[in-house]
């Protein structure tokens, strides 16, 4: 029987790692993710997880050790956030290019400067071009589930790409929620052992990994990564189906909430989706035709799902905790790509909020709705809006 325990998001991630039985965990502590490797090291020390726990001197080394382990042919896991993820940057490309299905938990945190340890998504969003799949969890249960799902998708032979699972710093990493821990046997059935056909070390089969790619071959190798990420769309859906059959919880590329007759749809990722559902309920009571949508998978970007969602809305408002300076929010830019050649599309608006741990309040969401309503009535509004700014100190 699955066990229900009350735990922090970081513990849920550690439990997911324990259930996935990685052979190597290499990690370096960083707020807010430190508890993940800390808890895993306890599992290893207590003999509950048979794995090599490698203590390293930096995040660059942590991910490098995972690359080495995965290239040797075993399941590898790590966790980090913010500056730590940024320090991993160059190796992230290498892990994807070498097609190593490493899974990493991220307590989504802002980037310096100024130094800030609180939540936004700038860390993972900034790694969107590395070739890693990206999943975002709304709550601690999703953090656990999505790590198991990430392993299954990453190790699929049609994919063979690493994956990161983000869950909001403090809002989830340090908040205690009830989490259902699946049975080990069911997880074993679901995941199986990682037995790679492409990358493993065997003296009887000498191979070269991570070699030089001349201009005559580099582009084809990169195209293979592109193809794998495209394949991931279908594989993720298959794995979501299988996950539901095994564990009873349903995941979607984009999960919709009260969107059927909605004029305004608020699209977001992560824990903010929970806030939006409550907000939508309140606005529905006031008679506003509004819905919400949660993007669980950010890479590969759910292009078809965005198109389908857009057909239901007159205004698609994107609420995101990141900014790409000089253009706007990353999700807004990506959603624009999904809709650019559609004949009919809603008005797309971008709302940048909640950076560096600023709480997203109902007052801020009211402002989002006000601007969206103006756009709906044909009034000209800004495409990119910073919400909740303390204008008095600017």
């Amino acid at each position, binding site marked *: 029987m699955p066990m229900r325990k009350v735990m922090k998001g970081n513990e849920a991630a550690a439990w997911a790692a324990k259930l996935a039985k990685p052979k190597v965990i290499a990690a370096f502590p960083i707020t807010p993710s430190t508890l993940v490797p800390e808890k895993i090291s306890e599992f290893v020390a207590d003999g509950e997880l048979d794995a090599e726990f490698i203590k390293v001197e930096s995040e660059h080394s942590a991910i490098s050790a995972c690359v080495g382990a995965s290239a040797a042919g075993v399941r590898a896991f790590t966790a980090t956030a913010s500056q730590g993820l940024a320090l991993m940057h160059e190796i992230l490309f290498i892990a994807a*290019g070498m097609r190593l299905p490493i899974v990493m938990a991220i307590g989504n945190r802002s980037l310096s400067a100024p130094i800030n340890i609180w939540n936004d998504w700038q860390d993972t969003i900034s790694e969107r071009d590395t070739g890693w799949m990206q999943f975002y969890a709304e709550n601690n249960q999703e953090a656990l589930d999505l790590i198991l799902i990430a392993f299954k998708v990453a190790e699929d032979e049609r994919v063979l790409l690493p994956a990161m699972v983000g869950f909001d710093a403090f809002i989830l990493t340090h908040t205690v929620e009830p989490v259902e821990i699946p049975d080990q046997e069911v997880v074993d059935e679901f995941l199986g052992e990682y037995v790679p056909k492409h*990358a493993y070390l065997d003296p009887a089969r000498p*191979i070269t*990994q991570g070699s030089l790619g001349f201009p005559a*071959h580099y582009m*084809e190798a990169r195209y*293979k990564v592109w193809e794998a990420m495209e394949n991931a769309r279908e594989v993720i859906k298959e794995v979501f189906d299988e996950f539901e059959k095994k564990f009873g919880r349903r995941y979607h590329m984009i999960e919709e909430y009260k969107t059927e007759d909605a004029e305004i749809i608020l699209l977001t990722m992560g824990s903010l989706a929970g806030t939006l559902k409550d907000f939508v309920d309140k606005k529905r009571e006031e008679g506003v035709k509004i819905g919400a949508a949660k993007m669980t998978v950010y890479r590969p970007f759910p292009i078809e799902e965005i198109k389908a969602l857009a057909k239901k809305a007159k205004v698609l408002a994107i609420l995101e905790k990141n900014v790409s300076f000089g253009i706007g929010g990353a999700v807004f830019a990506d959603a624009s790509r999904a809709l650019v050649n559609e004949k009919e599309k809603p008005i797309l608006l971008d709302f940048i909020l909640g950076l560096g741990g600023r709480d997203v309040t109902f007052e801020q969401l009211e402002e989002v709705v006000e601007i969206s309503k103006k756009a709906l009535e044909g009034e000209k509004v800004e495409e990119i809006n910073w919400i909740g700014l303390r204008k008095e100190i600017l």
Partner: protein
Amino acid sequence: MAESPFKADIERVQKEYSEKMTPGAIVYIPGSSVVNKTGSWRVFMPKFNKDKCVRCFLCYTLCPEPAIYLDEESYPVFDYDYCKGCGICANECPTKAIEMVRESK
């Protein structure tokens, strides 16, 4: 002329080698870098004067490629398929039996 000691390897690799891109660009044929004829990088080419050679083997020992092997009489043979033209052999040759000559292509 003596044969390259790597001839069998080169032939084996050429037979097995495929350009087909693998996931992760992994190379599954050991020693397959021989298909990459690094001699095409060369600008200066070692020109060998047998009359001056004292068979000291310095060029043979120091060639980093190695693109120099020895014939039946222990004279050096230059493998221009792989010689990158670094000039170490000419620089080290005590009798100046090797001269680097600009190659026009």
